[in-house]
């Protein structure tokens, strides 16, 4: 599905010489025209299209919106509030009919959402919250704390409630890194025989996760388990363990539920991962937006919705594809 | 804050500056005295107990070869460095100058060889940089401009205070430097090579200013490698050698031979006019060459033709702005020709790059050694090998043995004084650096060498060695084309003089039959009556015949200079 038709070298050469952008990437918003009952334009502002997680978010949002008859326009702020402001202002100036935003920072995003609302453009938030209610039509997030809890429970069981473990921590500037870490701790501290001996920051990144894990293994060669704040770091840890031939003895926990992780869980390399219902959340956020655009009324009683995460284990791993469970 | 106020107060009355200066010292009074000054760097004694007076209203000229101790003394006088022993007396009072600002505060200013101006700022801003006059609302620009105007008028260079320094000629910039020094109420002005970038007419203007300043009671300390100029301006001369003050004399008792003799301790001047000459075929032929500067639309070189034969040393004489450097760089292949043809051994060089031309047998020893000549971070050997690396390649790699052998042989033959080919190039004196640059070109086995001001910034002794080397190479068939603005050099060290002025060749002169005045007149554009505009002085067939054998061709070592006593007078 993602096969990019290209003669690789030609693309590079073209870029190099003309520094023209890249053909296909900007055309993702080629939506169906008018029609339907929506017929307007929706701006989708998200975090990082290169990351599978947000990629799924974007794809869901675009698909749902286009099915409703909207044209879409997608951009990414990479968690940079200034960039977010710029993108939002562009959308406001374009007088789009609605904005679906994955906000960059709870406090930082309040003002710009206010600005959109003042301009009469409904905003629906997905995946992260802002520190103010009454502005956005919806704030639909996955319950990271709950997810961390169910993941930790499953992993502790696999550990048989004893042994030493290390934790790989996400990007410290991302609030979710702390929420998940706290969620893990909340569960695991209840088991006195589970001892956390080390914690390293691996910035959500697979290569860093691997490097940090290798270093941790040098320090603690007898480790029994690893909990990681996301799947990429967990997969890096698995690589490191595999190299040392320790994969069979060490239990690894991931988070997010991306395809590689689903594979690793299915293969038995990873105990479990936690699926954030990003497709579900995005769909819901888009539905609210659509409703508001059409009727001016939000279907939600409370704008804040926390969707529960789903535990992915060997049993359901094969049903997981692109962040959604086939049921 | 307070320094600014102070400056403001002082500069508030620039007219008084002069009166206070003259009040401070009547002409002839000793204002600054160096007493038994010694300066040691590590084990090196740069100054050995120097006693030295600076008098109000007089120009004291410091002579000495590079490394004789002049610059060290200047640094001490201007507060850049402190003496290891001895002290300074200002108006008879013992003073210590811990920094340049202290020196400035006591009325001692220095104008450096390299102009220390900010080209992107105006004349006014440069003069008051760091000493801005503050008013109620920030900098008082009007007051500053007023003072600037007065200063520039006093220096007879009435440029607007708002002019950007980059838009001024070098000579004018020099005057801005002087204005800045005067604005600090300088009573003692140290000038380090102030004329090195000036044209002859600008030098005259500068000298006029110096005279005016001395009339106002300012004491001038003047350093220059340009001995004749320095003698002209001197009221009082002191000569340094090897860290010691070896002679002090009043102006009426000094002349060039005396200065040179005292500086180097012997008659080091050279004269190669009578060297044997064998001229062969035309090696380099320059025909109607024109160089245009697309950015300014000027034509610095305008239809110039000149031939250089095998074994011939041709001097291209011209003052600054005559187009000499532009011609040389175009010949070397750096700039495109706007017209004309350059052939080497009959082969047209059009379209060939610098590297190709070197391979073909023609390379340039550039004018600005630091900027264009040497690779500062590398050793003497690496520098000398740079242009001929291709000749020592086998397969992919350098034949390092061959390289080292050739380089060391060249060092020995040329007489580069170095600790070895591995010594950093920057550890060498200017003259030896220049020899290394010339050696680099000679190592390429050239047919013709182009040299742009080959003796700039070089000691008197080393100058003779450099020319001796060129004459030795010429005797073996090398063609030499060198640029100079030194009349003495043109007369004593060439076979033929081609005089350029404003981009054109004025005439060709025979060094044995011309005079200084004639050359200088030609350089200003006046063609001497007897001068031919074409046909080189004399040429003989490829076999050649010795015209004179009065001086033997020795290899150049320190002691190699012609003993002919034809000091350039």
């Amino acid at each position, binding site marked *: 599905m*993602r*096969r990019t038709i*290209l*003669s*690789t*070298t030609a693309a*590079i*050469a073209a870029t*190099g010489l003309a520094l023209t952008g890249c053909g296909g990437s900007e055309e993702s918003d080629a939506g169906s025209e008018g029609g339907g009952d929506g017929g307007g334009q929706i701006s989708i502002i998200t975090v990082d299209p*290169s990351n*599978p997680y947000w990629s799924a978010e974007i794809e869901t949002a675009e698909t749902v919106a286009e099915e409703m008859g909207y044209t879409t326009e997608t951009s990414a702020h990479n968690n940079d509030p200034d960039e977010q402001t710029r993108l939002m202002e562009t959308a406001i100036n374009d007088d789009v009919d609605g904005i679906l935003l994955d906000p960059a920072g709870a406090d930082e995003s309040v003002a710009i959402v206010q600005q959109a609302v003042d301009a009469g453009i409904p905003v629906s938030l997905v995946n992260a919250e802002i520190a103010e209610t009454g502005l956005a039509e919806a704030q639909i997030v996955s319950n990271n704390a709950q997810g961390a809890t169910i993941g930790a429970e499953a992993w502790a069981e696999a550990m048989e409630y004893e042994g030493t473990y290390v934790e790989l*921590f996400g990007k410290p500037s991302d609030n979710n890194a702390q929420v998940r870490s706290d969620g893990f701790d909340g569960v695991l501290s209840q088991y006195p025989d589970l001892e956390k001996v*080390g914690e*390293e920051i691996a910035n959500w990144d*697979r*290569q860093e996760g*691997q490097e940090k894990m290798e270093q941790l293994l*040098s*320090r603690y060669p007898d480790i029994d388990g690893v909990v990681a704040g996301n799947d990429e770091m967990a*997969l*890096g840890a698995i*690589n490191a363990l595999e190299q040392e031939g320790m994969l069979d003895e060490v239990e690894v926990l991931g988070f997010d539920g991306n*395809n590689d992780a689903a594979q690793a869980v299915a293969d038995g390399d990873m105990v479990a991962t936690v699926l954030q219902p990003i497709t579900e959340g995005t769909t819901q956020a888009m539905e609210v937006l659509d409703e508001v655009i059409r009727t001016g009324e939000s279907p939600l009683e409370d704008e804040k919705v926390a969707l529960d995460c789903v535990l992915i284990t060997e049993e359901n791993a094969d049903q997981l594809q692109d962040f959604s469970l086939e049921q | 804050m307070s320094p600014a106020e102070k400056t403001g107060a002082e500069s508030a009355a620039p007219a008084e500056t002069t009166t206070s200066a003259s009040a401070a010292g009547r002409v002839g009074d000793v204002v600054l005295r160096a007493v038994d000054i010694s300066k040691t*760097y590590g084990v*090196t004694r740069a100054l050995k107990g120097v006693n030295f007076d600076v008098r109000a209203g007089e120009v004291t000229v410091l002579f000495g070869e590079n*490394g*004789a101790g002049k610059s060290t003394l200047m640094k001490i006088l201007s507060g850049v460095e402190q003496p290891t022993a001895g002290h300074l007396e200002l108006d008879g009072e013992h003073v210590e100058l811990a920094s340049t600002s202290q020196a400035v505060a006591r009325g001692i200013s220095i104008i450096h060889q390299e102009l220390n101006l900010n080209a992107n700022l105006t004349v006014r801003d440069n003069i008051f940089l760091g000493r801005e006059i503050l008013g109620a609302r920030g900098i008082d620009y009007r007051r500053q401009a007023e003072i600037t105007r007065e200063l520039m008028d006093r220096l007879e260079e009435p440029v607007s205070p708002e002019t950007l320094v980059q838009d001024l000629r070098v000579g004018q910039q020099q005057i801005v430097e002087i204005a800045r020094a005067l604005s600090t109420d300088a009573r003692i002005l140290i000038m380090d090579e102030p004329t090195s970038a000036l044209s002859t007419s600008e030098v005259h203007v500068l000298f006029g200013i110096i005279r005016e300043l001395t009339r106002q009671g300012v004491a001038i300390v003047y350093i220059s490698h340009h001995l004749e100029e320095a003698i002209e301006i001197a009221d009082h001369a002191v000569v340094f050698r*090897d*860290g010691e003050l*070896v002679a002090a004399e009043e102006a009426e008792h000094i002349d060039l031979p005396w200065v040179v003799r005292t500086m180097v*301790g012997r008659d080091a001047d050279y004269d190669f006019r009578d060297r044997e000459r064998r001229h062969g075929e035309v090696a380099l032929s320059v025909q109607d060459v024109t160089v245009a500067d697309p950015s300014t639309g000027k034509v610095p070189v305008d239809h110039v033709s000149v031939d250089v034969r095998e074994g011939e040393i041709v001097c291209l004489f011209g003052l600054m702005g005559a187009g000499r450097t532009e011609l040389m760089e175009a010949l070397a292949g750096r700039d495109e020709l706007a017209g004309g043809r350059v052939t080497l051994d009959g082969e047209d060089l059009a379209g060939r*790059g*610098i*590297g190709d031309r*070197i391979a073909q047998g023609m*390379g340039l020893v550039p004018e600005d050694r630091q900027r*264009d000549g*040497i*690779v500062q*971070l*590398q050793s003497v050997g*690496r520098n000398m090998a*740079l242009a001929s*690396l*291709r000749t020592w390649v086998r397969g992919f*790699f*350098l034949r390092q043995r061959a390289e080292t052998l050739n380089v060391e*042989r060249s*060092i020995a*033959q040329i*007489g580069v004084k170095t600790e070895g080919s*591995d*010594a*950093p190039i*920057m550890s060498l004196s200017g003259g*030896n650096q220049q020899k290394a640059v010339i050696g680099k070109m*000679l190592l390429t*086995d050239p047919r013709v060498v182009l040299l742009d001001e080959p003796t700039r910034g070089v*000691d008197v002794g080393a100058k003779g060695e450099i020319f001796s080397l060129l004459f030795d190479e010429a005797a073996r068939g090398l063609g030499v084309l060198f640029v100079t603005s030194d009349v003495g050099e043109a007369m004593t060290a060439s076979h033929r003089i081609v005089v350029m002025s404003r981009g054109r060749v004025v005439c060709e002169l025979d060094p044995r039959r011309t005079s200084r005045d004639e050359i200088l007149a030609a350089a200003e554009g006046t063609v001497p009556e007897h001068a031919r505009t074409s046909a080189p002085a004399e040429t003989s067939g490829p076999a050649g015949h010795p015209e004179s054998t009065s001086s033997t061709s020795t290899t150049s070592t320190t*002691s190699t200079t012609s003993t002919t006593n034809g000091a350039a007078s």
Partner: protein
Amino acid sequence: MSTTTAQETPAGASTETTRRPRFSFSLGSVLVEARALVALAIIIVIFTALNDNYLAVSNLTTIAKDVSFNAILALGMLMVILNAGIDLSVGSTVGLTGAVAGNLFQGLDVPLTDAVMFPATWVIVLISIGVGMLVGLVNGLLISRLNLAPFIVTLGMLYVGRGLTQVLLGGTNITNDLRGQEGLGNTGFFEIFASRPLGVPIAAWAMIAVAVAFSLLLTRTPFGRWLYSTGSNERAAELSGVPVKRVKTRIYVLTGMCAGMVGILQIANIRSSTADLGDTYELNAIAAVVIGGAALSGGRGTVRGTVIGAFVIGFLSNGLVIVGVSPFWQTVITGAVIILAVAVDQIQQIVQRRRAQARAVAEARRVSERAERDRDSEGKEAAGV
């Protein structure tokens, strides 16, 4: 030249001086490197004292691998820094070449047909590295032919490369395809590029190969000399016939090649081609070069120093984890070490400059002393005061 000078006997004085100790110049560069070596020694001693596992074979293997990636990039970076240039695009080129390789493992759609071509593993590797070199070539041509500032060009290329990576990966990772399929003839990637011949990770072997090759290139070929001289004084090099533009172009190609190699090795290492791969690698590479004694102003730096510099960073970051320094402080300490290295560099330069000045004065003194001797022997006609 040799023909014209061969018959000349060197003058006595100069022969004597050319026989002076040969190591005086290289001593300077040894001192610069010594700083990195001392740092490395200190780091090793401290961390070994704090944790026994630090010098264990398994940990050394880990360090060797991690260092290798950075060292290879740093060696490429050294080439451009020697030229007073910089290449900020290496990190994204790592990601890009990884993505290219990943895509090639998924097969290449042949235009205008429905056919899909699966190149052999070695072809994929060569193409990917070739893409890295192509990026370098574009950088190099823009910098040398259009005289653009390396900082700007490569900064732009950083974005272009990262963007293309994202285009190629389309928001997903390529993981399973890297294993290849027997039927497609593109297997063996991990078996080769994540292997450990003689117990040493393949990346370390690659680093050794690059180091040896670059070391020969810099010290034994005209190209190396040209590079050092253009970095120190481009105008002088140009007037000596050095093809400065060609040199400039080629070094960026070399840098791109190194990035391509790291891209291949890194996706084999993490067993996946991800869009973030190589993010900020350029900074570590620059740091290694600088710690290794190279001057950002060009003309100064060695292969040995750069490799040591990479080891300093590697040993440091590994050690900080091994002894359990708080993750937040690790970053602070790493940064401090880099600043310290640059500061020491600057201080050293000041000292060297002073020494050179003193030497120049001494030389002048020697000249005049000799002149005095000559004068005396010529018959005491010195001019008196």
